[in-house]
């Protein structure tokens, strides 16, 4: 693994979340990873969640649809439409979750800047309302905690079975 940049998360306005992260690869590769289903399926989403549906109609006005299946079989679907497709430096699309608990589509803008073979990806998620943003921010936290407990359970199970590193 390249051990590249640190991910920073900021909230420059009350309707936005901005994620910035550097990758040790040219931006055309990062752009591909954001738009090609075969590649998206290999990295996108939370741990333990696999993309069972990953459809991309990569043209302006074309739609995308992802369904992620969680460890307990829960499906989480979301999708939207492409607004700007400008490889390798800019991608803009809308996003709406199937079971979204707040109103309105979000607008996601990816900006890719390459320097010396490294790419800085800046992803801005703009929500229809502040409430929407705040609700979304609270989801991964719950999921993250659940996953941490899952990993702890696995570890404890290994210890119980006498297969743990420390036994």
């Amino acid at each position, binding site marked *: 693994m390249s051990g590249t940049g640190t991910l920073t998360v900021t*909230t420059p306005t009350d309707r936005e979340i901005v994620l910035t*992260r550097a990758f040790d690869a040219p931006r055309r*590769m990062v752009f591909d990873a954001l738009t090609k289903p075969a590649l998206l399926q290999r990295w*996108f989403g939370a*741990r333990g969640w696999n993309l069972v549906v990953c459809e991309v109609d990569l043209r302006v006005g074309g739609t995308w649809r992802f369904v992620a299946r969680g460890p307990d079989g829960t499906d989480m679907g979301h999708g939207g439409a492409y607004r700007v497709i400008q490889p390798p430096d800019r991608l803009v699309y809308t996003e709406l979750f199937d079971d979204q608990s707040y109103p309105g589509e979000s607008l996601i803008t990816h900006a890719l800047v390459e320097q010396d073979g490294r790419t800085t990806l800046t992803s801005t998620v703009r929500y229809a309302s*502040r409430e929407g943003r705040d609700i979304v921010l609270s989801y991964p*936290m719950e999921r993250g905690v659940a996953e941490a407990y899952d990993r702890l359970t696995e570890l404890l199970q290994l210890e119980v079975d006498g297969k743990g590193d420390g036994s």
Partner: protein
Amino acid sequence: MSPDLLDATFAALADPTRRAILARLASGEATVTELAAPFDMSQPAISKHLKVLERAGLVSRGRDAQRRPCRLEARPLRGATDWLQNYRSYWEESYQRLDALLDDLKAKEGRA
């Protein structure tokens, strides 16, 4: 941290004047008059902002009836930071897989 307090914290932080007030208080307590000085704003307008900050638990007022100095309360800010940190971990996990994928793509291209 309760969702209500988190809402109040983020709402309070969404305003540039209130962020400037917090920045000023980070260097020590101040009275409303002192806080109003650098802004082109009336004291009642500043007091209104202070009320929002107080409700969010970001600012407390001293007991001295004359001056009632304002001071910064850092704990809710910490809560808001921790919250963003959780969001960060979620995406960092995904991006680490993207790192591995990109390494793989580069290796394949190198062989081609």
